[in-house]
């Protein structure tokens, strides 16, 4: 059974990821959401979206230090279709969040 609360967050993330020119790291998404996404839960939601094949993850290595590669998130084709369907049905997305 889909969780309506998590679905709202997922749609928000999907619509933020739609803007491909923006920085699509998890922390950048938290900043872009303007308080609607929390640092403690975004990773779980992103992981769930990846499990559903709505987004894909690209590991970007660092050039400044030797830490683990950072994860950058992108929408998949399925994710775009889900987002388009959500727009058509009037579900809340990130419209109005962008300055």
């Amino acid at each position, binding site marked *: 059974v889909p969780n309506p609360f998590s679905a709202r967050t997922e749609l928000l993330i999907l619509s933020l990821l739609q803007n491909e020119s923006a920085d699509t790291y998890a922390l950048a998404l938290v900043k872009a959401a303007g308080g609607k996404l929390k640092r403690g839960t975004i990773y779980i939601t992103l992981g769930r979206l990846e499990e559903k094949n709505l987004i894909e993850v690209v590991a970007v290595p660092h050039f400044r230090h030797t*830490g*683990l*590669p950072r994860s950058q998130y992108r929408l998949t084709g399925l994710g775009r279709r889900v987002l388009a369907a959500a727009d058509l049905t009037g579900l809340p997305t990130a419209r109005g969040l962008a300055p």
Partner: protein
Amino acid sequence: MSSSPVTIPGASYARIRASAAEWLTRLEEQADPNLRDEFEQWCAADARHRAEFLRLQAAWRQGDRLARLRPLDGRVDADLLGVFNKDLLLGCRNDPRAKKSRQLAPTANTKPRETEREKKIVLLPGTRLAAIAEFLLTRAIFRRYVRPIIADMQDEYVECIARGERWRAHWVAVRGHFLVVPGWVYALVSRAVRKFFGA
């Protein structure tokens, strides 16, 4: 530096090394063909000269790469540097103090004198946690729920250190470790639930 480095016959290894280091510095700073001829003469004087020069040159180039990898707070990983003088290897080329020390006594201290703290391998926060999580968890759970948190934490930590905000960097490290726990628990619980319901 107007006079060329002089090598006394039968000179000790330390003196050869000092001359080689001096040649290395001079050749990097000047592109004079006469200097190159002088250098060739110095190399021809003793087979150990060229060998020592090439060894130091390789170390110098390796040092450039290490300098880019070292932690931004300036700490030095002594294990990576080996037995070479860290001032010679990691001293910034544009730093006048480092340059002066290289010119005056390039290899005055060939014996490593790093403190115990410098000898300790410097790891970014979360490195050990990542290793443990990678060992304990499945690859998918680690990649989805643990690695991104640790990677972002390490990036934020380095940014804070670069800005000189040491306390904030420590806070980022502590918070990052606590953030891993919910992701880990969620992944394990959801997996158990799915198994239970046969999904």
